[in-house]
């Protein structure tokens, strides 16, 4: 591999710039679909059909005053937004988009991706605690409790994919799916459902937006962040949304594979990837629009009483079949 080409891949396509661009588009789509469910039109006047709305929000937040309160833990408070964004972008690099291999690809990279997701949540907890604001602290506590709830079923559903593919390497998982069948069709559908529910909790969207519950604890762990720090955290959320739908596509919907014409793979693969992630995004947004927020105890109860047993049974079932 040429080093210059690799650098271009990481920085522009399908790397960081592409991820940020797509994250803005996805936030816009998310808001539009959400508005449709509520019989509204959503962003309309910022660019054609309001497509530039997330970009305008981002630029505005970048240009705003950046307040650092006296009581915060300053080093942590300043560096955490950058950490969060870096982690989510690193995760995106490992997803296969232009070929069956991601830019970062090694045996066992699925575990690496899961660790990244947990690290983002730990950054969230630190962000809440370092703000030393009572609302932020409560938000961080809730984020930690929620992590205990959704983390285990999510890992179990990912492990079920590992068993089906007999590998923890994303390249092999995708190529097996492109040669045989998508894991969604068949035994994987339960795992997919569990993954989507836990993904919703990971992204802190309704019904699991407990750590940033607006009506109870102001803005949760985000309360004290303003200006560009808040902009980076918002961007992190959007990239994470993209990353999670991409991961769901990779694990259950066959990644970027699809009917191909020889020689045209680098063009067709990203198109298939986009179509499939849009489908997952639509599912996630539908969940967000249809439900109301749960209480934290309801969420943890639901997770430990129903989600984890179902996930374990699913693993046993998959192990018997494959």
């Amino acid at each position, binding site marked *: 591999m040429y080093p210059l080409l690799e650098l271009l891949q990481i920085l522009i396509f399908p790397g960081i710039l592409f991820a940020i661009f797509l994250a803005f588009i996805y936030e816009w789509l998310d808001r539009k679909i959400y508005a449709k469910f509520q019989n*509204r039109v959503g*962003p309309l*006047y910022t660019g054609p059909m309001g497509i530039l709305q997330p970009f*305008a929000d981002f630029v505005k937040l970048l240009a705003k005053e950046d307040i650092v309160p006296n009581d915060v833990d300053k080093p942590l408070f300043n560096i955490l937004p950058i950490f969060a964004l870096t982690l989510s972008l690193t995760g995106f690099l490992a997803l296969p988009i232009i070929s069956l291999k991601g830019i970062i690809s090694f045996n066992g990279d699925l575990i690496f991706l899961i660790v990244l997701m947990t690290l983002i949540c730990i950054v969230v907890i630190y962000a809440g605690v370092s703000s030393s604001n009572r609302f932020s602290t409560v938000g961080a506590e809730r984020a930690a409790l929620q992590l205990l709830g959704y983390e285990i079923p999510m890992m179990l559903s990912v492990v079920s994919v590992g068993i089906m593919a007999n590998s923890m390497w994303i390249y092999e998982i995708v190529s097996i799916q492109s040669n045989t069948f998508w894991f969604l069709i068949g035994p994987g559908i339960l795992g997919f459902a569990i993954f989507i529910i836990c993904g919703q909790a990971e992204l802190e969207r309704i019904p699991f937006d407990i750590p940033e519950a607006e009506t109870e604890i*102001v*803005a949760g762990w985000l309360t004290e962040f*303003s200006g560009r720090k808040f902009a980076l955290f918002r961007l992190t959320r959007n990239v994470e949304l993209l990353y999670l739908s991409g991961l769901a596509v990779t694990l259950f919907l066959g990644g970027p594979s699809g009917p191909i014409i020889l020689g045209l793979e680098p063009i067709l693969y990203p198109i298939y990837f986009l179509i499939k992630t849009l489908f997952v995004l639509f599912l996630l947004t539908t969940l967000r629009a249809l439900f109301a927020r749960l209480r934290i105890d309801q969420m943890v109860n639901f997770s430990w009483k129903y989600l984890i047993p179902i996930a374990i049974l699913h693993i046993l079932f998959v192990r018997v079949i494959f």
Partner: protein
Amino acid sequence: MNIVKWARLKSPWLLHFNTGACNACDIEVLAALTPRYDLERFGALLKASPRHADVLVVTGPVTRQVKDRLLRVYNQMPDPKFVVAVGTCCISGGVFNGCYNVYPGLDSVIPVDAYIFGCPPKPEAIINGVVALLKKLEGS
């Protein structure tokens, strides 16, 4: 037009502050955010934290009790910030003008950028007020 100004015009995030209104103005502010009028068309979102907001929407007469809290929330907002006074009570004290516990208008406490009169103002009037504020920004 420079890009930062454009972004500011396109995404005014609101923070709603009630200084002791009778709830009529509050209901009208909420009505302006509901699907019938849908302020999100203009990029406006209702935010819960003062640190995230650009526009402070104040309803109700400013009493001596609430003045300190109002100033505190105002100071917590990052620059550039704008203030909209909604309703007659907020603009001048309304029927409470001259009471020992009420300030004669919001502008005697914090600088105000737009006034929306009415008791209570209609949601159309509130949207008009926000648009007037944006026009003023565009000109400045």
